[in-house]
């Protein structure tokens, strides 16, 4: 019957604030994006970062892994990358006369799939299936992926030549899609004056044990979602499906994603329950890659679509 934030939540918030602050020291001026990334992680979702090269996508993923003490693997996607290069292969052992499985880079707690749109769709889908199922099946044998398991995929804006942009159906598997964008002036200045980022990343001491992160993820699903908030979520979903102007409405999965992302956001705020503001904060990242407006001539930025949705739906 505790109404206030339980001590656990308070603990979590303290820790998460530290984690975010630490990450913020390396990835400057991207506080909100970092928070979103953590929320995504806490909600057990995967993250897609879509932006130009060089804005710090890789750094962010690396920082996340370091700060959380997660085992980290980076896979640079290229057009000649094969599924086996990611998942791992079975190799015949002469000594034992049996096949043994050599796990690929995906068997890490945090996998950075860099420039995922450079690989062929076949390779892409191997990654996405593993993401979805939390396991890898090679030659009839199923290998469970580590827990927690978190994929950060980066993608360059799709109009570059020689890329295979992720199809819409696959985009849905990422809980969030964020853009980093250029840093603002003061952040840029800090960046220029500061030390080498890679060095800084290497110096980061893990603040959280994987087990603690796992427990936090457990607690995220316990964050209270009241009937009133469910009403709001439903209004949002219904509006995206019914209102003219939206090409494809949000899927039920999108609704669930929105809910757990909002729960994670509430946890970042140290709250035991979700507020409409939590939904509003995560909504652009969660629905930006799932919604399309009808008017394709003026391709609206995902943020604009989300903002429109938020503006048009009243909080019940």
């Amino acid at each position: 019957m505790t109404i206030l934030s339980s001590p656990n939540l308070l603990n979590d918030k303290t820790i998460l604030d530290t984690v975010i602050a630490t990450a913020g020291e390396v990835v400057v001026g991207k506080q909100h994006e970092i928070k979103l990334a953590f929320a995504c992680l806490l909600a057990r979702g995967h993250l897609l970062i879509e932006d130009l090269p060089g804005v710090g996508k890789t750094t962010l993923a690396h920082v996340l892994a370091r700060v959380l003490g997660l085992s980290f693997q980076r896979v640079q996607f290229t057009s000649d990358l094969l599924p086996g290069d990611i998942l791992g292969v079975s190799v015949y052992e002469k000594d034992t006369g049996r096949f043994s499985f050599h796990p690929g880079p995906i068997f890490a707690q945090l996998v950075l799939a860099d420039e995922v749109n450079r690989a062929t769709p076949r390779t892409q889908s191997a990654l996405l299936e593993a993401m979805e199922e939390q396991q890898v099946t090679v030659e009839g044998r199923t290998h469970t992926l580590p827990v927690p398991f978190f994929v950060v995929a980066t993608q360059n804006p799709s109009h570059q030549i020689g890329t295979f942009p992720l199809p819409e159906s696959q985009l849905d598997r990422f809980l969030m899609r964020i853009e980093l964008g250029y840093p603002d002036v003061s952040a840029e200045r800090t960046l220029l004056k500061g030390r080498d980022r890679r060095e800084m990343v290497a110096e980061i001491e893990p603040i959280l044990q994987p087990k603690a992160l796992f427990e936090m993820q457990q607690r995220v699903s316990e964050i209270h979602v009241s009937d009133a908030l469910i009403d709001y979520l439903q209004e949002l979903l219904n509006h995206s499906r019914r209102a003219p102007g939206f090409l494809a409405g949000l899927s039920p999965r999108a609704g669930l994603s929105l809910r757990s992302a909002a729960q994670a956001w509430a946890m970042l705020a140290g709250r035991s329950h979700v507020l409409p503001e939590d939904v509003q904060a995560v909504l652009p990242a969660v629905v930006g890659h799932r919604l399309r407006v009808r008017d394709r001539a003026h391709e609206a930025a995902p943020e604009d679509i989300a903002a429109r949705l938020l503006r048009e739906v009243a909080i019940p």
Partner: protein
Amino acid sequence: MASATAAGVRGRAEVSPPPRIAVRVLPNRYGWLMLLVLGVMLLGSINYNNNLGYALTFLLMGVWVMAHVHGYRNLRGIEVLGARATPVFVGEEAVFEVFVCNSSARASHGLAISAGMVTTDMFEVAAGDSHTARLSFPAQRRGVLPLPPVTIASGFPLAIGTARIGWRGEASATVYPHPAGALPLPETDDPAAAAAGYALSGDTDFAGLRAYRTGDSLRQIAWKALARERGLHVKRFAGGVAAQVELRLRDLRFIGDPETQLSQLARWVMDAERAGISYSLDLDHVLLPAGVGEAHREFCLQALAHYGPPS
């Protein structure tokens, strides 16, 4: 402009009004008695062909009907917002606070809340006002004491009919084991702490910081360091490690039945808390890391309350 917005908001809310709470109103034994008397009056009026007798009888019959309508209306708009109870120890009274509000435009009179065998005194709730009713139940068993289904009843206006609404909330009181047992706190494992005694005095020399580990007491967190964005750290004191005891259920295997053991643990938790000693609780399958403070104590007692199937 402002009013238009307000109206818009209200208009939205009316789309899905909350489910109305069903008010049941039935004549009680006095109601039936009154009908009987009215029947006799009617017979008399018929026999003597007394028209004023008829009139009076019919008037009172009408009043009888209207009294039930008024009884219904009296309870309409009464909502139970919720109920809660603070945890108690076995042997204490668990007091449930039931929050009642009146969302109708008129006052509701003569209400009484009952649950199980317990009934409150009469109270009334003014229009748009609310009331907190208290129902106490003896906490006899460790574990969870659920609030029985709640009934709000009123005999208003003539006590010839009873209007009722029911409410089934999920309120429950946690019942901690009764803290009892004569065993002293177990010896601490740490010789340094033992030397320093159990007292963890505030003026012990500050010795530095160490990284936060899950389970560390909030009291020991170095908040200033955190504020300076230096990460989460815990203060360390000159005595080495803070005084700490481990309260283990398995250490008590030799005394009494499980309830007695839990009572002893509860006793220890209270004692350690009073002494300000950091304590951990090990219930075999549940392990609460060391800590001290109100919240920690609550957690430990909760764990004890929910331990295993209550006997």
